[in-house]
């Protein structure tokens, strides 16, 4: 009786003999094909079959090709889209820069016009820093050395009052914006001539006209200008426009909110009024 290991060995031997036989046949075929071209006629005949098979599969192949082209073109489109988006972002930035430059140019032209109306007692200033606190609103401005700017001078923009100089250095000054909680300006209602004091509320561009009795005739959209009391500061600089008038039941005074006409954050260049100027410095027609 043969042992199992002998059987396995016998099977293996049988397998490798067969393998060698087939390997030899395959090598012979390779040699014949390479040297004698024995199988070339058969291959030529079969190539027609290949063509036929390929022809029958052509629609499927074409569909698969279209499928792959669809995805490759989609990838290309996504890439192109990305490039266009980048270019558009760049263009948007350039456009915004252009718009900002144009606006600044207009502001500078307006300031120049303002200065031409009264050549004396004015000094151009440029904002170099601003407060980032909502409760403490100031601007640090820079100006030409030896300019005669002093504490208390008004700083104005093209539309009206910005604030008041509170401290001066060699070529810099700190300007307290009118909307600062500690700021107050003597104003006059342009329509009625009523004089009062406007205070900053510590909020963006928001002022309040305080201690105005309820009987006083003040309406929404009334323009407030500097009163010029004391003779040091000019009369007629627009300060703000009344935005709401309401009655406070707990006191005898009206609650009058005023919106500042000039936005200190909108521009970088302003004018400091270092002396008395003419009343017609600001054309009130432009305010609206």
């Amino acid at each position: 009786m043969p042992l199992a290991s002998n059987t396995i060995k016998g099977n293996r031997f049988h397998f490798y003999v067969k393998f060698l036989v087939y390997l030899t046949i395959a090598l012979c075929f390779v040699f014949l094909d390479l040297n004698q071209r024995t199988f070339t006629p058969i291959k030529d005949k079969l190539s027609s079959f290949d063509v036929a098979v390929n022809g029958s599969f052509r629609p499927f192949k074409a569909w698969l090709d279209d499928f792959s082209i669809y995805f490759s073109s989609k990838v290309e489109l996504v890439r192109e889209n990305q490039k266009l988006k980048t270019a558009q972002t760049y263009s948007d930035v350039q456009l915004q820069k252009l718009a900002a430059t144009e606006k600044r140019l207009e502001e500078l032209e307006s300031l120049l016009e303002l200065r031409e109306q009264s050549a004396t007692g004015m000094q151009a200033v440029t904002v170099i820093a601003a407060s980032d606190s909502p409760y403490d609103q100031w601007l640090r401005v820079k100006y030409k050395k030896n300019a005669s700017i002093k504490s208390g001078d008004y700083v104005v923009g093209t539309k009206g009052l910005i604030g008041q100089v509170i401290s001066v250095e060699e070529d810099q000054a700190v300007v307290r914006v009118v909307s600062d909680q500690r700021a107050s300006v003597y104003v006059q209602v342009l329509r009625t001539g009523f004089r009062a004091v406007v205070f900053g509320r510590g909020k963006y561009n928001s002022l309040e006209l305080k201690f105005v009795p309820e009987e006083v005739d003040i309406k929404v959209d009334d323009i407030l200008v500097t009163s010029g009391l004391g003779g040091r500061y000019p009369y007629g600089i627009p300060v703000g426009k009344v935005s709401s008038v309401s009655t406070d039941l707990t006191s005898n005074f009206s609650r009058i909110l005023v919106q500042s006409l000039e936005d200190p954050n909108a521009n970088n260049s302003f004018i400091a009024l270092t002396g008395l100027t003419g009343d017609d410095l600001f054309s009130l027609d432009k305010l609206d």
Partner: protein
Amino acid sequence: MSVLIQRISNTKMTVSIVIGLIISSFGLPGLSSSTAPDCLALIILYWAMLGGDHGPRLSTVFVLGMVVDFLGGQIVGIHALKYLCLVALAVQFSSRFRMSARLNRTVFVVLTVLALEVISQGLVSLYFGASMDMGRLVAVAAWGMTWSLVEFILEKNYSRVDR
């Protein structure tokens, strides 16, 4: 440690070999002949590794290789040679292969198909005095790396009733 499923379905083996034969002979759309996969080689290797005595016979493999060569218009006998070597290697290493991890099996397959491609290309290159097609070698290695996918497809039980 991973062990391949031992059950062999003749139908599945036949169907997979026919599909592999079609792909290897006629290629795949969008792929040139130099980068097209030799799916039949991977399928034969799988069944030879897994099947043992029930795997594809040497005669069958030989005929399949000849068919691929004739239909593909290639040097007759070159695929037969390759498939015979694959089956011989599979018979030699099947036990160890089945007991090894999936990564090891993939590495083994990649090295095997690459070595066989180098040998077959080397034979032709020696005869013609031409250099080897490196792109084809890279493609063969890349397709060898899909071994896990081949295992997954062929291992899966497609019958509705689990027998």
